[in-house]
C-alpha cells in the first residue's frame, strides 16, 4: 500500500494501522533526507500550503513550516491574532478567502474541538489538523509513536504511561488512539479531577498512584498542566501536584528499570518534569522535536500524493 485511506488528517481515530505504518516508513526516508547536506526535495513544488493558527504554537507551527519548505511547497502563514477574524469573519469565510488565492492544503490549529472536521466538509482543500481544542493532535501522536519505535524498535507490546492533565489534552487522546492501533497498552495517570470520566471505555487503564504505575511502564509521556484551559482549580496547589505527579530523579531512582521519558512540550520545568530529568539521556524530548519534521513531511507528502 502506498496511499493513505483518508483524504485529510483530522485525527488518529480515522486512521488504520497500515496508514500509521505507511507514515512511519515514509518518515524513515525523510529522516534520511534531513541528514543530507542539502535537506530539500522538490516533491511539493507545485503545492501551496496555508498554515492557519487560531491558537498559539511554537513547535508545531515551526515544525510544519519547516516540513513544508523541505518539501519545496509554497507556504503562507496566518495567525488569527492579527487578522480579520477579530472583525467577526467566520471560519469558513476566512479559509475560503485564503483558498481563493489558490491554496491546496490547509494546516489548522483551532481552539474548538471538531474545527478541522468542520472545515474539511465545507472547503475544497486537504486539511491537516494541527490540534483542535481538547480533541486531537494527530501529528504529535504520530511523532511520539515514531520516536518510541525508533528508540525501542517497536511500539507493539510496550506499556505506555501518560501522566498529567488528561482532561484538557488533545495529545493524550491522539496518543491513546495511535498507541492502541499499534498494539501498545496505555495507562493514564493523574489527579482524579484531571482524568476524564468514562475514559476506561477507550480501553485504557487508569492509575491514581504514580509510583505504582511507573513500575510497569516502558515509556512515560509527561503532559503539561494546561493552566490556560482551566476555568477553575483542579488540584489544591502546584506544590502538591509536583509531590504526587512530578517526575524527579528521586522518583525514578526507586525503580529497577529505566523507562523512556517523553514530553510534547512546552515543559513546565519543576512541575511535571524536574530539570535534571528533562536534560537526562533517558529523555527523548528533543528527538521528538527532530522526528516531528520528518513525520510531518511524510503526512504532507502522502496527502499531496492523492490530490
Amino acid at each position, binding site marked *: 500500500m*502506498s496511499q493513505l485511506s483518508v483524504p485529510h488528517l483530522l485525527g488518529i481515530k480515522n486512521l488504520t494501522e497500515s496508514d500509521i505504518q505507511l507514515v512511519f*516508513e515514509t518518515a*524513515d*526516508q525523510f529522516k*534520511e*533526507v534531513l541528514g543530507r547536506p*542539502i535537506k530539500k526535495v522538490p516533491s511539493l513544488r507545485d503545492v501551496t500550503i496555508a498554515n492557519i493558527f487560531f491558537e498559539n504554537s511554537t513547535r508545531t507551527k515551526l515544525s510544519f513550516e519547516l516540513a513544508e519548505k523541505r518539501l519545496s511547497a509554497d507556504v503562507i502563514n496566518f495567525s488569527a491574532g492579527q487578522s480579520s477574524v477579530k472583525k467577526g469573519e467566520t471560519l469558513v469565510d476566512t479559509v475560503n478567502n485564503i483558498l481563493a488565492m489558490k491554496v491546496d492544503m490547509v494546516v489548522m490549529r483551532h481552539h474548538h474541538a471538531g474545527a478541522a472536521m468542520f472545515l474539511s466538509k465545507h472547503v475544497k482543500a486537504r486539511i491537516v489538523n494541527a490540534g483542535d481544542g481538547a480533541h486531537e493532535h494527530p501529528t504529535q501522536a504520530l511523532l511520539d509513536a515514531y520516536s518510541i519505535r525508533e528508540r525501542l524498535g517497536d511500539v507493539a507490546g510496550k506499556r505506555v504511561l501518560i501522566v498529567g492533565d488528561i482532561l484538557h489534552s488533545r495529545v493524550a487522546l491522539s496518543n491513546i488512539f495511535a498507541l492502541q492501533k499499534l498494539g501498545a497498552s496505555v495507562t493514564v495517570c493523574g489527579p482524579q479531577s484531571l482524568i476524564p470520566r468514562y475514559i476506561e471505555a477507550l480501553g485504557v487503564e487508569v492509575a491514581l498512584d504514580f509510583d505504582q504505575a511507573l513500575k510497569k511502564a516502558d515509556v512515560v509521556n509527561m503532559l503539561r498542566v494546561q493552566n490556560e484551559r482551566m476555568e477553575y482549580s483542579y488540584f489544591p496547589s502546584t506544590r502538591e501536584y509536583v509531590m504526587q505527579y512530578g517526575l524527579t530523579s528521586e522518583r525514578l531512582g526507586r525503580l529497577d528499570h529505566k523507562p523512556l521519558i517523553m514530553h510534547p512540550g512546552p515543559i513546565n520545568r519543576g512541575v511535571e518534569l524536574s530539570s535534571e530529568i528533562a536534560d537526562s539521556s533517558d529523555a527523548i524530548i528533543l528527538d521528538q522535536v527532530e522526528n516531528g519534521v520528518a513525520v510531518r513531511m511524510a503526512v504532507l507528502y502522502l496527502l499531496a500524493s492523492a490530490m
Partner: protein
Amino acid sequence: MSETLLLDSKAIHLLLHRLANQLLEHHLDFSETVLIGLQPRGIFFANRLGKLLIEEYGIKDLSLGYLDITFFRDDFRRSQEPLKANKTKIDFLVENKKVVFIDDVLYTGRSIQSALSAIQSFGRPKAIELLVLIDRRFSRHLPIQPNYRGRQVDAINQERVKVCWKENEGEDAVYILNNTL
C-alpha cells in the same frame, strides 16, 4: 501475454564481466569513484557488479551506495499509483568524486534525470556516468545516453523488459513481455 527470453544466466554472467572490465578500464582502482545503484531495481545489479569487482578483480575499498529518487520524480501527483519510497544509503561523500549510476533498464530517461537532481543533495560530483544492463533505444523522452550498456534492445512501447536476479526472483534472466499478443 507472450514472454521472450532475451538473456539467460550465462549471457548475464558474460555481460557482468564485460561491464566490470569496462569500469576497471576507466576507473582503475576506484579510489576516486563511487557506484550508486538506483532504487528499487538497480540495487541488485549494483550489488552484483560490486561483488564481482571486489572478489574477482581485487578492488579494495569500493564505495557502493543506493539512491532512491521517489521524492525527485517528475510524475509525482501525475501518475495513477503513487510509489512508495525506498531506502537511500550513501554513507560516503560524493563531492569531487566520479559517480557511476547503475540501473537495470534505461527507458525514457526520466528516472536518470531525477537521479541527477537527487545526487546533488549529497555534494557536487566531479563527473557522473551511467551504466545500464538493458538500453531500450528509440524510447527516450530526454537526451540521456548510457556510458556503459549490457545489451541494446529495440522494444516497442507495448512491450516490457523484465530483469530477474537470482537473489530476488530465483534466476538470472531478462525477458521481453508483450501484452498485445
